[in-house]
């Protein structure tokens, strides 16, 4: 068995503009450790490499290849692809794992074409058996589990953010620098970056264990405070339906569903959400679903473990007080 799990698995880690590893790093390294030896690639701006490499070690990278280039701030994806190709040639891995973030998908698509490898996307897990690497997917809103494999070559796999529970043991990594010159392929230019206003202390939606989400029934951006209040009592992340997002109650990144984030928390509370099939596609794999909706016919009740037919503006405040009371 052990000889199956010693192959290097190349893992591309996303780094933020302030130099921190993305939260997907722990998941990618965890997935890699399950099928081999995690070898991380970090391509970041000058001065950020060493700290990011150490952080990757804490999350399980046995070896880290680091490249620093100012181009990551001015050229879209090109230098990251070039660096990853070089790392791939150096390491000769048995799989390449990349985050299914927007940035990760760009890199994965180009990398797979350039190295002529097959691509498996939006994976929620990886395993290996004596025939090679098996990639697990959850499709059509969690209605089906699908396994895929590649016929030969090195699978390039994008991993759903918040989709993998495996974590690797901390390692003391060998850190190498990856010197390279970009291949200068045509690429888009990054003109500017506007950081978003300071993040709240709430857990992020992806990978959250509890989620409280609001829909059109919440009615306004001001009243969304009620959703947030319940979330804070529960230590939950805040989500929303597409209508709530389109109506400007909350930012786009809160959207749960088919074309938003897919979540699988222990607890999902839907407030003023009808339960349209596209919304359900992003949350129906939650362990326990609670819904509050004044329409007894709302579709959300078909999948709710505990449904309340009622007005969220009376039920939620009472729930919040009751929860605070139990805490004392």
């Amino acid at each position, binding site marked *: 068995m052990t000889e199956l799990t010693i192959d290097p698995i190349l893992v591309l880690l996303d780094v933020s503009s*302030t130099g921190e590893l*993305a939260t997907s790093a722990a998941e990618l390294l965890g997935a890699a450790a399950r099928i081999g030896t995690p070898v991380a690639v970090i391509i970041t701006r000058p001065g950020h490499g060493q700290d990011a490499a150490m952080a990757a070690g804490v999350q399980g990278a046995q070896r880290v290849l680091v490249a620093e280039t100012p181009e990551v701030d001015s050229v879209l994806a090109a230098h990251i692809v070039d660096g990853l190709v070089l790392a791939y040639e150096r390491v000769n891995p048995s799989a390449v794992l990349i985050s299914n973030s927007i940035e990760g998908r760009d890199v994965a698509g180009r990398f*797979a074409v350039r190295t002529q490898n097959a691509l498996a996307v939006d994976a929620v897990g990886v395993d290996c058996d004596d025939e090679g690497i098996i990639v697990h997917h959850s499709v059509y809103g969690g209605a089906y589990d699908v396994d895929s494999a590649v016929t030969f070559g090195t699978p390039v796999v994008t991993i759903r953010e918040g989709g993998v529970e495996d974590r690797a043991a901390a390692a003391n990594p060998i850190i190498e620098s990856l010197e390279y010159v970009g291949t200068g392929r045509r690429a*888009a230019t990054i003109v500017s970056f506007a950081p978003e206003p300071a993040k709240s202390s709430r857990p992020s939606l992806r990978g959250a264990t509890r989620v409280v989400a609001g829909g059109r029934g919440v009615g306004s951006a001001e009243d969304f405070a009620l959703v947030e209040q319940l979330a804070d009592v529960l230590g939950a992340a805040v989500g929303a339906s597409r209508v709530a997002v389109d109506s400007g109650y909350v930012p786009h990144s809160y959207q749960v569903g*088919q074309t938003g984030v897919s979540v699988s928390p222990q607890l999902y509370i839907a407030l003023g959400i009808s339960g349209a099939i596209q919304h359900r596609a992003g949350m129906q794999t939650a362990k326990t679903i609670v819904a509050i909706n004044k329409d007894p016919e709302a579709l959300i009740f078909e999948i709710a473990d505990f449904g*309340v037919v009622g007005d969220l503006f009376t039920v939620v405040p*009472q*729930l919040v007080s009751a929860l605070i009371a139990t805490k004392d």
Partner: protein
Amino acid sequence: MKIVVLVKEVPDTYAERRLNLETGLADREANDRVLDEIGERAVEVAVSYAESHPDTEVTVLTIGPQAVPTSLRKALAMGATSGFHVLDDALRGADLTLTAEALAKAAERIGFDLIIAGDVSTDGNAGVIPAMLAERLGIAHATALNSLEISETDIGGERETSGGTITLTASLPAIVSITERHPDARFPGFKGIMASKKKSIVTVDLADLNIDSDADLPRSIVVAVSARPARSAGLKIVDEGNAGQQLAEYLVQNRLV
């Protein structure tokens, strides 16, 4: 300006979608097939540019089964100039590599200054086709744009990234993909529908594009499929003044707080 818009026919998301448990392919009988909503938005972006720039040609390009021309007609009725359909049995269940190869060769055949795609398809959930095409075609990509400006020589737009928003530009030729923050597609009016009947849809197969689907390249294949048991409804109460209290008790009892 020549714009190619990539549209995909998908199972309608308003009904339960099914996979064939033997083949792992979408069960074509289970749902109506429709133009993916994001592709309709991409057509909208192209035709509204064409409206204010009359020498623009918009070709909608798709890979899909025989039924596809019906949904291509909708894009033509919205105002696209013509359609291009890659139809070949070997494309049933094609993996991303083969899909990207066929789309890239078709786009080259059509000729373009700009390609507009959706960011992610609702059935594939991949979000990689635009970048794969960019690599094959040797052009820049600017994906997942929440806004897009097109000029004769460049495109520009904004995309969300972790921790903020970035503004991008790229010189043409380029490929962009747009998010659902772009406006809904227009309803094709009667005039559009009538006009679409005279527009042409070119159909080609893989041989026409010099593609060998049996080429010795790594492919991604489905090896197992299983259906999860459907969820069922649990307890449902009607609020009679103490539902908040009851719900709190339920959460506490089930150790959910």
